[in-house]
């Protein structure tokens, strides 16, 4: 039934330039916003929502149009940009791309609704948001390494302004052996958070550029095309330094330890929709980069360094979970839990097994939905309580029963409760880890999931359970109007994709099956 329907729709959809639509819609929206007067906030919001709606629908259409039986990269198109260097705007999408496009579409649409209440400079805010998401969509459909990197930077840079202008500051107590630094740097401020995030990610970018250039030259200096690079067998010497460079470069955005510290400050300072997009989608760009570029193009290098990638991921899982447990600021809990959960993605990638890779990409998807939901909720709580300080909270479920319910849903997915998307991802990753040469990774992962259960449920109890809130919290209430959209959308998505994971996992599996043998069969000996 479903298959017949998609089979009928496929030729019709094939006539549309879906990949161009998905990337261009937010950009066109952003350009349109330049011509709208600031005094018409509703028009601004509607443009933001419509542009993201078009992208979201286009991402669904891409999923229908993608022929899983054929597999591979589909819907390809090419447009020469700099012919002399072999740089082309070549687009195309594989199974991983399809799943992450859907994720981005969902999160962006939810984020556009969640930004409805932005008061100051609404037009510029939506503009930045749309430019950012253009970059994200672009990364997932690029087949040219140079264009991939271009889109990657487009996605990363607007973050500086979004946090610096619309963010919120929070003071961090000065202590520790490096106390003197606190005097010079405004640690905890939103400008500080924005600056730290941008600088750390740019250092990562520098590493990526170096590896990229080296690969381009060794592949004959003719083309940045990924398909061309995939056919090239890079020398072991190059692979051994280029893979770690890509891993750290992209990994900084994925929050790998110890380059994760931009994430808690950045996410805590960022406004709601920005946290949603950043933790929900942007961090996945990093992990996607490590897998799609690092591991697929440099299979031998990846094999050599798998122990380190997985080991650091294991640290991420436990370290992030423990650090989250000690936080009292609600946003920091969610931010550190992202560090922990991104560790699951990297762990899955490092296992280099079918289940591990499927799980890694699915964890990107599941964590994106979950953390998007979390940050939407935290935004709502913060807007009403004007505080994120958990020890002050308690009994909020009386006045915010739905926020409490959705928060619990997010927590349950976060701790890997079966029936929700998080479980499928974690289960596959841990299964993959158990099949890999490093079985102990699976045990670390399981422990991490258990510690997650401790800190998320503890936070839920402190915020929402207990005696009814005192006089201080008279203003808190359940969501209204447009605030509902993100919650219901992401909440239901968590349940749907947890109960019927094959909706997304089928796409992921196609690409995993095609690309994994390159890495699994990486012939180190031959190159040596």
């Amino acid at each position, binding site marked *: 039934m479903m298959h017949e329907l998609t089979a009928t729709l496929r030729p019709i959809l094939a006539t549309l330039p879906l990949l161009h639509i998905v990337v261009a819609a937010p950009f066109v929206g952003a350009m349109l916003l330049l011509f709208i007067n600031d005094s018409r906030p509703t028009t601004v919001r509607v443009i933001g929502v419509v542009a993201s709606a078009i992208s979201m629908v286009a991402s669904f259409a891409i999923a229908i149009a993608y022929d899983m039986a054929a597999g591979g990269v589909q819907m390809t198109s090419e447009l020469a940009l700099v012919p002399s260097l072999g740089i082309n705007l070549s687009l195309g999408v594989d199974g991983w791309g399809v799943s992450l496009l859907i994720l981005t579409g969902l999160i962006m649409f939810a984020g556009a609704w969640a930004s409805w209440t932005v008061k100051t400079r609404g037009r510029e805010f939506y503009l930045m948001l749309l430019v950012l998401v253009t970059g994200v969509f672009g990364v997932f459909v690029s087949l040219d390494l140079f264009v991939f990197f271009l889109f990657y930077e487009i996605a990363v840079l607007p973050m500086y302004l979004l946090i610096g202008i619309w963010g919120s500051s929070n003071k961090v107590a000065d202590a520790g052996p*490096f106390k003197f630094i606190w005097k010079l740097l405004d640690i905890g401020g939103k400008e500080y958070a924005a600056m730290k995030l941008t600088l750390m990610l740019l250092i990562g970018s520098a590493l990526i550029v170096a590896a990229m250039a080296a690969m381009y030259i060794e592949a004959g200096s003719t083309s940045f095309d990924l398909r061309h690079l995939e056919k090239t067998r890079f020398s072991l010497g190059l692979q051994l330094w280029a893979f770690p460079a890509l891993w750290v470069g992209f990994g900084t955005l994925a929050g790998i330890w*110890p380059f994760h510290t931009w994430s808690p400050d950045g996410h805590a300072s960022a406004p709601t929709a920005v946290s949603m997009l950043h933790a929900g989608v942007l961090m996945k760009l990093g992990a996607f980069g490590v897998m799609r570029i690092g591991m697929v193009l440099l299979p031998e290098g990846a094999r050599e360094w798998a122990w380190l990638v997985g080991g650091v991921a294991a640290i991420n899982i436990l*370290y992030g979970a423990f650090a989250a447990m000690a936080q009292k600021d609600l946003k920091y809990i969610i931010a550190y839990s992202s560090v922990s959960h991104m560790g699951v993605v990297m762990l899955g990638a490092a296992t280099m097994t079918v289940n591990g890779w499927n799980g890694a990409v699915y964890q990107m998807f599941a964590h994106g939905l979950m953390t998007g939901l979390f940050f939407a909720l935290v935004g709502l709580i913060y807007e009403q309580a004007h505080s994120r300080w958990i020890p002050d909270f308690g009994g909020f479920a009386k006045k915010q029963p739905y926020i409490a319910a959705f928060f619990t849903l997010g927590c349950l997915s976060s701790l890997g*409760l079966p029936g929700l998307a998080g479980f499928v991802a974690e289960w596959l990753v841990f299964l993959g880890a158990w099949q890999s040469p490093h079985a102990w990774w699976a045990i670390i992962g399981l422990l991490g999931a258990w510690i997650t*259960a401790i800190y998320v449920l503890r936070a839920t109890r402190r915020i929402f359970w*207990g005696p009814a809130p005192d006089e201080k919290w008279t203003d808190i209430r359940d969501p209204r109007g447009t605030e509902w959209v993100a919650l219901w959308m992401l909440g239901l998505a968590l349940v749907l994709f947890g109960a019927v994971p094959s909706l997304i*996992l089928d796409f992921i599996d196609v690409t995993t099956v095609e690309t994994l043998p390159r890495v699994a069969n990486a012939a180190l000996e031959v190159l040596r």
Partner: protein
Amino acid sequence: MTHDLLALLALLSPLVAAVVLFIIAPLRVRGAVSAALTIGATSVSLVASVLLAAARMFGATAPNVDLQLAWLPGGAQTLATVGVYVDPVAAPMMVVVALVALCVQVYSVGYLGHEPSRDRGRYFAYHALFAFSMLGLVMAPNLLQLFVCWELVGLASYLLIGYYWTKPSAGQAALKAFWVTKFADMGLMLGLMVLYVKTGGFDWNVPVGQALMTADAETIAGLFFLAVVGKSAQFPMHIWLPDAMEGPTPVSALLHAATMVAAGVYLIVRAYPIFMLAPTVLTVMVYLGAFTALFAAVVAVFQDDIKKVLAFSTCSQLGYMVAALGTGSMVSGYFHLTTHAFFKALLFLTAGSLIHAVHSNSLHDMGGLWAKMKPTGILLIIGSLALAGFPMTAGFFSKDLILEELLHAGHYLPLGAAILAAGLTAFYMTRVVMLSLFGAPSEAAEHAHESPAVMLAPMVLLAVLALAGGLLHGDFARMAGVEAAFHVTPVGVVATLVGFSGIGLGLWRFSPGRRTAIGTQWVSAPMRLLTWLTASKPVDVFFAGFYRQAMLRAAAGIAWFDRYIIDALINLSGWAVLRGAERFRELQTGQPTDYVYAVVGGLIVLTAMGVFTA
């Protein structure tokens, strides 16, 4: 074909009710609508389950229902399936689950009648979720689905324990239950991973001796058993169960006595082909089960809270089941699960009826209720007799079977513990009956009223089963392919005599004339120490200490390290750049003469380099 439909109906009707109630708020906030939907759905499940079971028990042999759908893909193949599977093992459990669930739900209509409508709505929505998950666990075609539903019943337990969420103690208890069982569940997850790597699937029917070596089977069964210890509240992970009594009493009856805690026992029953390959694990089961049976029975004697008595009694009875399964006799453990579900649910519901009447859990606040509440009193006595293994009640048959199996297997020490525990069981149940029903009524008991018919009717049904459930004895034996007729054995006689003496001792000690002091206060200082020790306090203190001293400290330490070492190092680099820039800026002095010197100096250096290299 019709059976396939019946099986799907049994599983999916509570799911539909749950989904509808969770999503459609206008239905949920009306408590009556929510109750009607959930009870209706569970009734459908019950009818379907009875029809399915009738075709597979009592000598009938319908083919198994086996419907599976691909759920997880992996490497262009199917990694895992979900579906429904009904065989002679699953069918009776389905009936037990649906029946007890229905009784409890109907009872809840009366018990929670005074609660606000939207809270009742939430309550029944949770119940629908539980019924679906528990049936999904029972009907699972493979161990992965069993695990999925295993976690979902844990969720239902968490939500229902925390039903009175404004009470801090309820919140604590809900979290504790979730954390402890979740910790144990890691064993099940790891066991499934080992099973998958060794056999390529999640089936319990592994080809004996081929795919699975004994060492592997020991590992898998051992890991599974860890999860059982958590879920079925075996020592030392029983600590969450007494706290779970914070939930409404009907919840304790359904989840924390009859069905959910028995899921662990059911897991062993389901995965029996694997457990049978693991003799070491089986032996551990016998000893740990017997120890838990005795230990929890001792603790139960000292409890003043009627629900706590029953909670520890549940631990104890689950210990019997685990020990029985450890002897290699699936029938005895499984049969005791069934009969226990009936009489323990009955006991909790009667306890709820008493609590409802006096608005207190404490046995101190009861007393003399016989005069006010005869029907409840009779039902309580029936339940207690069945639990004590009084001849010809359901508990008599199943307990007798377990003791016999322990004897046959040659486990004399566990057998002794089990017989002793049987005596203690009779003693503490007599104590509950005497203290709550007889003697001088307390102040609260003066105003007690009998519960409404909607609460009594389910109890009567369960009482009938608690009395007559023993008749299923032969049929359970047939399920495992053994023709067993009940016969009087020496060990049975001994156990019955021990039980009688327990009852007699209780009647004497707690007779209205002698009950000057009860509970923990009737003991001297050394006895008080013993009470503290046996009230499982040390275990609790140990786990709480581990949580506070190890987990929270580690968390605080790592958070400090992250903020003040790692993050500070990154800040240090930023600081170094800024400071460095300040130094370098001093090169730009703004004095033209300085610049001329620099130009001339540079020229000289470059010329010199040119000369020397040339």
